[in-house]
């Protein structure tokens, strides 16, 4: 173990030029995480490098374990969390998939594991660039899933993730989706809060009667038959249903303590007040989309953007209310769901499902764009906006459209 230095006590928030991955590592330090496990895969490995640096520099005191595979990596933190340790873990692409068995058991056992997924295309072909299919693979299992846009949001959301996941009403794992390259590898100015604020915001993780400890002898994860499984699943369902309320509380507290406002925790709205149509997507695509919107606004086109943060729990009612205001919605998926309804991406299908019971149901056009880390360009956003306007005018665009594809 590295010698732990007396921490330098910051009296006021500081500012640093750091990447999204570094921001997550800094959040680990601020949250005083107890156990961190690592296994290298790009782009997540940048986080493990920064964490290793913090530990070896004596700035952070935690058990830092480099496992022999992702499966062990996620199993180790699962067990550490079961005995009451605050944990952090992460991976990317097929590394995340290699841990899949450990990922499936974590929500059932009500382990508030916080994971960073450096979003990366699944093999094959081996590719480093961003796609969201890795993190989305756990969407049905009880994991909370949140996508962030900037390094600042990455830091803040990590702190929020521990607060929400470790809430006794929830006790579910939470994965933070960080787009490979665009977020993980680019540095921007980030405000780093003083530890006192973090302490106030983030109470000690108390596992209570679920803590595996000699003073609280319990058996975890016994084999069960059909007499039990449905009730166990229902408990997970109930925790997922409680999650939106706890998320809302946590963001309100965050704003009170740190003074940074996120508004609606579940999605960000950009230029939507008077918009006729909106685009909807997750992650760092917001940058080119916002640039394009500003250009199109100057041309008098009333287009806005909804950037979805929380994919699980899915903000069904809030989205119904918001999207119902527009004449059409274009959903940009940085993922695919081959063979699904309309051959759409995952987000488009979820949005359509959410809107089905809404009073006002604008047409939803599905786009697939920016796969494998390909740039979502301003002209591409223009093209998608034009098509969404056509849908608003009554044209039936029920297929799913691949934008930026070489024919």
């Amino acid at each position, binding site marked *: 173990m590295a010698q732990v230095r007396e921490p330098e006590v910051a009296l006021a928030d500081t500012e640093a030029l750091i990447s999204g991955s570094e921001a997550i590592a800094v959040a680990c330090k601020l949250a005083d995480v107890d156990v961190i496990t690592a296994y290298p895969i790009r782009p997540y490995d940048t986080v493990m490098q920064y964490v290793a640096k913090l530990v070896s520099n004596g700035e952070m005191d935690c058990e830092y374990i480099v496992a022999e595979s992702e499966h062990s990596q996620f199993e180790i933190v699962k067990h550490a969390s079961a005995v009451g340790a605050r944990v952090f873990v992460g991976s990317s692409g097929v590394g995340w998939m290699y841990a899949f068995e450990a990922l499936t058991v974590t929500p*059932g*056992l*009500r*382990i508030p594991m916080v994971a960073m997924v450096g979003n990366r295309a699944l093999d094959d072909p081996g590719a480093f660039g961003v796609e969201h299919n890795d993190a989305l693979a756990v969407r049905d299992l009880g994991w909370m899933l949140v996508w962030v846009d900037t390094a600042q949001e990455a830091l803040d959301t990590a702190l929020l993730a521990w607060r929400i996941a470790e809430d006794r009403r929830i*006790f579910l794992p939470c994965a933070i989706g960080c787009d490979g390259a665009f977020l993980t590898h680019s540095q921007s100015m980030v405000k780093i809060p003083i530890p006192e604020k973090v302490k106030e915001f983030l109470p000690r993780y108390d596992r209570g*009667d*679920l803590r595996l400890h000699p003073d609280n*002898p*319990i*058996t*975890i*994860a*016994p084999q*069960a*038959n*059909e*007499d*039990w499984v*449905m*009730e*166990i699943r*229902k*408990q997970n369902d*109930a*925790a997922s249903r409680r999650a939106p309320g706890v998320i809302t509380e946590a963001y309100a507290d965050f704003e009170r303590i740190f003074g940074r406002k996120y508004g609606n925790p579940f999605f960000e709205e950009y230029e939507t007040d008077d918009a006729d149509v909106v685009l909807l997507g997750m992650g760092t695509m917001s940058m080119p989309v916002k640039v394009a919107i500003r250009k199109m606004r100057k041309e008098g086109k009333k287009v806005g953007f909804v950037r979805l943060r929380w994919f699980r729990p899915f903000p069904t009612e809030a989205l119904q209310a918001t999207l119902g205001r527009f004449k059409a919605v274009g959903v940009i998926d940085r993922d695919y769901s081959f063979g699904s309804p309309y051959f759409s991406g995952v987000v488009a299908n979820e949005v359509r499902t959410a809107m089905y019971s809404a009073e006002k149901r604008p047409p939803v056009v599905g786009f697939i764009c920016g796969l494998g880390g390909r740039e979502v360009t301003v002209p591409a956003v223009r093209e998608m906006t034009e098509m969404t306007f056509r849908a608003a005018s009554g044209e039936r665009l029920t297929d799913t459209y691949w934008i930026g594809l070489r024919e």
Partner: protein
Amino acid sequence: MNRSYAVEIVYRGIFQKTLAKHISRGLVLAASKEGKTGISFGRYGDSPERNGIPAKNFAIVAPDEETLEESMAQYEPKHVDVTISVDDTLCKGVESWAWYGLQPINRLLNPGGHLIVTSMLGFDDLLKMIHVKDAPYNLATLRAIPSFSGLWVYKDDHTDVRLLGTIARLVPEMVSLKAIEQAILDEWNDELKMLSARKAYERVEVTEVPSGVGVTDTPYEFVLPGWKEMREGVTIRSIEMGGTFTDPESGKTGGYRPATNPYFKKFSTRTMRPVVDFDTCVKCTLCWLQCPDSCFDVTPDGLYDARMESCCGCGVCEAVCPVDKCITMVNESEFTDNASQWEMWKADKTGYKTWLTEKIQHRPDRSHGFRFRGQYAEQIQVMSAVGMTKSGNEKVGGEDTTEASAGGD
């Protein structure tokens, strides 16, 4: 036949898994010879790959596919026309891996249905093990040593076909002897097995059991909690530590009695139980140490008393005990309760010695493999005498089995 018939075969995991499958398959195959249809299946939630754990197979026979579907739209039949218990100790009740609490062997049986037990015991002895039922039913026996015809070793003692013959006799409207015989010939191509079935058909012993006759103990039950009452995180509280207890004779407190799980008794897994001679015990601790179920109480006077709520009858204690006949495994059918042997011994040492001497005559001649060299040969002779037709497949004790009579004795 204008309705479907359901048959359950209650058997012991591993040891009788293949036997149970042969019976349920044989029934459906026989029914198909008569233009009927059917399905044969194991209760999926069971764990028949665990030694001795009670498990079930089912056969449904129906006049047509539509009637069959109506009977099959459930996980397992809720009512059966025939229950077959291929090990008489299962008459004490069934607690499978798949559920909690003890189910009487006749629980699913329709009023007037047939409970068939393979046993060397008479009706009176069987009814000392079988719980009462609130309706009359028929108890039939197939004279046989409970068969060890399992997953790894199949002892072809004809128990499978003999039971098929018995069913044809008791429920001819479900399946006829002719169809059973044809199915046996087609499935096994073995005329001797067919003749064994016919002989069983001719020799069925059956009696009507009026309602209210049998063991009146209330089988232990377990109420499944709702999802709001269950602990979260797939966790269960550990069993508390045990503690001392009191010697009823001397009033002395001491020893150690491990606490047990009130919901997970599993003693219906047992086909034999240890009886302990406390007068010859040298207090070496080996039985207590080696028992995989921690079933031994350490008594205040330093003896070891096997607790029958926890004992699954594995026989490890007998195997490790260094004193001759200090721990002896005895056929479970010799007992009607789970009382403490140590308390019996404390109360009346002379009487206990008599009881013990009588009990250890009843060496188990059943299912956990063979317990001594030559046991198979002995069993084949017994089985031949009670109605098995020797198959000629085995060489038994040098006797030329091919000369055995076919259906003549």
